[in-house]
């Protein structure tokens, strides 16, 4: 498929995230991304409760939402979540994500970081966007 012109510099914006407790020590995370030119992209992911599981679920949901953006913009890009981890940077908690991206049969490893605040889902979503934004022209 031929790629259509996109909006250079248009940023995928984090709109909101939600953590929904489920039965059986499970939880669902919901992430919404917006494009300033129009369009909301929502994705969810389920996982076990607990910080590490929820960070991973948040990463999966954010990437799923981002895949919707990519599809809407007719970009030939794929993403795969490799790792998500909480750690300490500058004496404060942070979250780092590692993502594999492919475009035109070229693979690239992307890294993203965000301070980890009380809303771990939001922090992870921001880390994912920070990993993808420089590579993805619409981000």
């Amino acid at each position, binding site marked *: 498929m031929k790629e259509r012109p996109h909006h250079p510099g248009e940023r995928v914006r984090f709109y909101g995230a939600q953590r929904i407790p489920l039965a059986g020590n499970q939880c669902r995370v919901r992430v919404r991304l917006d494009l300033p030119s129009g369009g909301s992209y929502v994705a969810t992911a389920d996982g076990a409760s607990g910080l590490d599981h929820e960070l991973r679920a948040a990463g999966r949901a954010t990437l799923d939402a981002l895949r919707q953006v990519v599809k809407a913009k007719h970009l030939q890009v794929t993403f795969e979540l490799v*790792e998500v*981890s909480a750690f300490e940077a500058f004496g404060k908690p942070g979250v*780092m994500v590692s993502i594999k991206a492919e475009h035109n049969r070229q693979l690239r490893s992307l890294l993203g970081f965000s301070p980890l605040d009380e809303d771990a889902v939001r922090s992870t979503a921001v880390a994912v966007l920070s990993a993808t934004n420089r590579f993805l022209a619409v981000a």
Partner: protein
Amino acid sequence: MKGWLPRRIRFVKSASEQGADGRRVSVELLRPDERRYVGQAEGPDTDSDLDLTRAGAEAAAQAVVSAAGVDGTEVKVEALERVNMFGRDIVIVSVVATYRGQSFSLFGISPAHDDPATTGALAVLSATNRVLELS
């Protein structure tokens, strides 16, 4: 990176040379219209990787200010840390940027490269590109 989605600004190279009082690091950025922007920073007279990384970050910050092309733009490297995550060394940088009258606290990240100054420069670019509309 031919074939990848376009960026408005690219890292070209970093270079360091021994000056009278320490290492001088320069970083060069390139816009698609071939305009080039060079930033420079002085580092301590050591071969410490972390010092050279910081000098590369500060040189990149200066180049980014020039490339932004907006009066009043400032980019200051606040802190820089090297961590081992996912089995590799990664540099995280904390930056405060002022752009179009607004201040932003930003974080950037880069895998460690053989040249520490390049690592610092790429970390700063990853911090600033989204806010300074350089991506």
